[in-house]
């Protein structure tokens, strides 16, 4: 998966980190120190539809369909998360109990074209 930079319009992962101290949340969230709120952005022209970030075979399958059916711009491919991971949080609730939980699929690790 590509990380976004200024030189490309293609589908990529834009990283953004929110430090809990900066937003005054470090008094109740013990761990982690911050949250990586990454997101996907960029174009998915047909020749890269189904690009990796997922199985290359999927890309080949989509590409063959495009060629075989001469699909023009009727349908289009979108830049979406293709791999995510959980966010483990250790925090104080309002009774000062410590709660630990893993929030599934919270951090975008990779982006790809649908």
């Amino acid at each position, binding site marked *: 998966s590509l990380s976004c930079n200024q030189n490309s319009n293609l589908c990529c992962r834009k990283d953004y980190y929110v430090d809990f101290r900066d937003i005054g*949340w470090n008094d109740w969230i013990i761990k982690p120190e911050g949250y990586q709120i990454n997101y996907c952005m960029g174009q998915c022209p047909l020749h890269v539809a189904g690009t990796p970030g997922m199985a290359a075979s999927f890309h080949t399958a989509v590409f063959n369909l495009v060629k075989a059916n001469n699909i023009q711009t009727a349908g289009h491919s979108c830049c979406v998360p293709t791999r995510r991971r959980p966010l483990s949080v250790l925090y104080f609730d*309002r009774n*000062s*109990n410590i*709660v630990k939980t*893993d929030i599934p699929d*919270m951090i975008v690790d990779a982006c790809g074209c649908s």
Partner: protein
Amino acid sequence: EAKPGCPSCGMPTLQPDAERAFLVELAKQQILQKLHLSEKPNVTHSVPRTAVANALRRLHLGKARQEGVLGSLSGWEGPEMDEQGYEIISFAETETTGQLRFQFTRTKGQALHIFQAHLWLYLRAHRGSNLTLRVFLVGQRGALLSERQLEARGTGWHTFSLLPALQGFFERQERTLRLELACEGCQPNATALADDASGSHQPFLVAKATIREPGHRVAKR
């Protein structure tokens, strides 16, 4: 060639400050929503850091020594892979009557399903003394929650399983749990916190649970 604006939707690129404000707000909403919280908890009374450090250290040690009883704080899959598992550590407030009081909060309509619940107690005892320690639920006609005969290894921490009785407490959506201790063979003040100014011997309760949202269908595979 990178054109100005968002390459996905063509909207003009946000100014850095506007982008930051938007993403910070989004991050806050996502985290609160996933933790089933309507707002940032206002942490009322702070727990002594030594008590927190001690509990986290014990639970991690507990993983090494007693696999399956306490597990560890790092990573735990709830029994239903598609349910979010929770581990709750609640520190006792000691009342003048010697009872241990624990406070819990529950969002309306949420069913907290407890899988494991253990009370951690710091006991002062002479090595080799035989003790019988009972934990009662105050209120419900003093229901006996847990009883252990133990040969003290000297002063130290002991755990008491509180299930299945505690399951009923959480299903009743109550907020305050009061426990009473009775000990045969203990020296006076065996469990007292009198001289525990630092809080490092504060009793605590560890529960493992999953939260079932209203209308949650457990898909049995």
